[in-house]
């Protein structure tokens, strides 16, 4: 069924847009409920998967808007083990953690712009911010990520056990 077909895709998406695993799970649930409730509104225009992805992202954005003031902290940050190291020697899990640890709005902008290919104009509309804000948020998000990655690489280089770059 639909859930089985698309849940992993949409959950991966949710993970990127959420600050931890539990929030991603909530997001997935809300997104699927929204999908089922609005399935009649799918106009058979464009791809169905794209439509579901948009709903998932919108759910995350809605959550972000509601959480501007206050957010709950979830303890469990478990992600299924991923051993595939890329050529930088940083695991996907670590990268995801980097993204998730970004402040909400930096994470949203970074995901939308870098990973899902939206323009600053689109992001500005989706997040109800100005294009300038979107750009500066992206720059700050990038800087935080860069610093984190550099830190990780430095620690890795000091440890003898890790694969070389």
């Amino acid at each position, binding site marked *: *069924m*639909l*859930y089985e*077909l698309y*849940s*992993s*895709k*949409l*959950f*991966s998406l949710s*993970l*990127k847009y959420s600050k931890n*695993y539990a929030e991603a*799970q909530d997001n*997935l*649930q809300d997104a*699927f*409920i929204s999908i*089922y*409730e609005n*399935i009649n509104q799918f106009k*058979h225009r464009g791809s*169905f998967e794209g439509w579901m992805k948009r709903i998932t992202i919108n759910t995350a954005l809605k959550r972000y808007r509601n959480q501007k003031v206050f957010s709950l902290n979830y303890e469990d940050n478990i*992600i*299924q083990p991923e051993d595939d190291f*890329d050529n*930088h020697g*940083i695991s*996907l899990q670590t*990268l*995801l953690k980097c*993204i998730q640890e970004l402040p909400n709005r930096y994470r949203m902008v*970074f995901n939308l712009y*870098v*990973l899902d290919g939206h323009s600053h104009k689109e992001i500005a509309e989706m997040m109800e911010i100005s294009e300038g804000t979107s750009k500066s948020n992206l*720059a700050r998000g*990038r800087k935080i*990520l*860069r610093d984190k*990655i550099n830190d990780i690489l430095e620690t890795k280089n000091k440890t003898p056990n890790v694969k070389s770059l």
Partner: protein
Amino acid sequence: MSDDHNIDRLFQESFKDFEVDAPKGAWNNIEKKLNQNNKKRIVPLWQKVSGVAAVIAIIILAGSQWFITPKGNNSFVDSSGEETINQQNLQNNPINYNLRNSNSQNTDSNAVVNSDDLENISIQEEKVSGNSAQNNSTALNITTNANQYSKNNKLSSGLISNSNTVNPSKPVASTTKTKNYTALISILKSKAQIQNSHLNLKADPISTKSNKFNQQNLKSLVKVAEQINNEKLIPNKQQEKTWFVKPQISPVFYGNLGSGSAVDQNFNQNPGQSEVNVSYGLNLAYKLNNKIKIRTGVNQVNFNYNTNDVFLLSSSGFSSFNNVDVVSGFESSVVTSDQLSSIQESLGQGRIPSDESQLQQQLGFIEIPMELEYKLIDKTIDVNIIGGASTLLLNDNSLDIQTGNTTTFLGEANNINAFSFSTNFAIGLDYDISERLILNLEPTFKYQFNTFQSATTDFQPFFIGVYSGVVFKF
């Protein structure tokens, strides 16, 4: 900047194929929430439906009892004494027997119903409503009302007038009680019907159905997804219309691609021109595929070709019409200006009166085309190119000479073949008005051959038409 780019690329490449299985418990939560939502939504809807149904039922019942009854052959107070109380409605009702009893008593004993009887009925009736235990507050209300009515003997004027019209043959003496009785029975009947309808409503498994529907809805979502994929692969196959019928009409401009005159070589040097004429007919097309149609039809085509600068001499014997069968009564000659001046030279100026005239040749054909239509552009306005040939059957052939305002019949051309042909080329513009209708405009060029017998003339006719019509699709 390149640093930014590196960061972007690092994440882009890492997350390109990023896919993590959704947590196992997630679906259960989703299902739970979906069911909750469905329940929330369905219950008020169901209540609304049943509420509306109950209101409608009451209105209809009330209306039918108070307004329709007098016109119908209502049974329970029929003066003939026939017991036609709706057995089904009251079948399981213990008061049925009582009603029948009292009813027959009513008619037999000149409609004297004692109040004890009524009390009795009311009490039993109360029991019945209790026993039936449908918890239908509406029904109970009616029952109570009925009891009150029967006990207090207070009937609305509407009910009184009602029973008056129902029992025209009834003795007046018994009216009050009979009225009371009639009203009671009416109310009982409506109550029974309400109960019935209520039972029906209850039995109607709308709620279970809608639950099932939701289940199915969820399951069929996969099918929806599959369907969407399939729809992308398979283009829409609509039942295409394959036959096209087009009544059409066109102005035709007749012209000469060769040289000379069709009437006689004498007039080769004379200027000539065509008058605008008309072609009309019916075109039939069959669609072979999306691009190609084969078409035929039948058209009437009329041509008119005038030769100027000819002179009518009021004496025969000067003109030669090699290609014309001159009508026997024609006692004049038609000559060119050169001929006229040589005649006048030899005979002397003014001996024979002459008038400048115009030779008018009319030709008519029945045209049977056989053409192929190829669709070049398939947009709002379709553009087609059409090529083919026509067979032309001569059906009108006459030659007139017009002098001033008088036109004289000269005869008919004898050099025209009964069968001739044309090669056709056209550009068709189609605009879809509706699913069944197309507006069509078709500039057409047709080059004729074998129209005139060979060696009689160098006249090489063609015609141009702008056909327009409405195409009917079948």
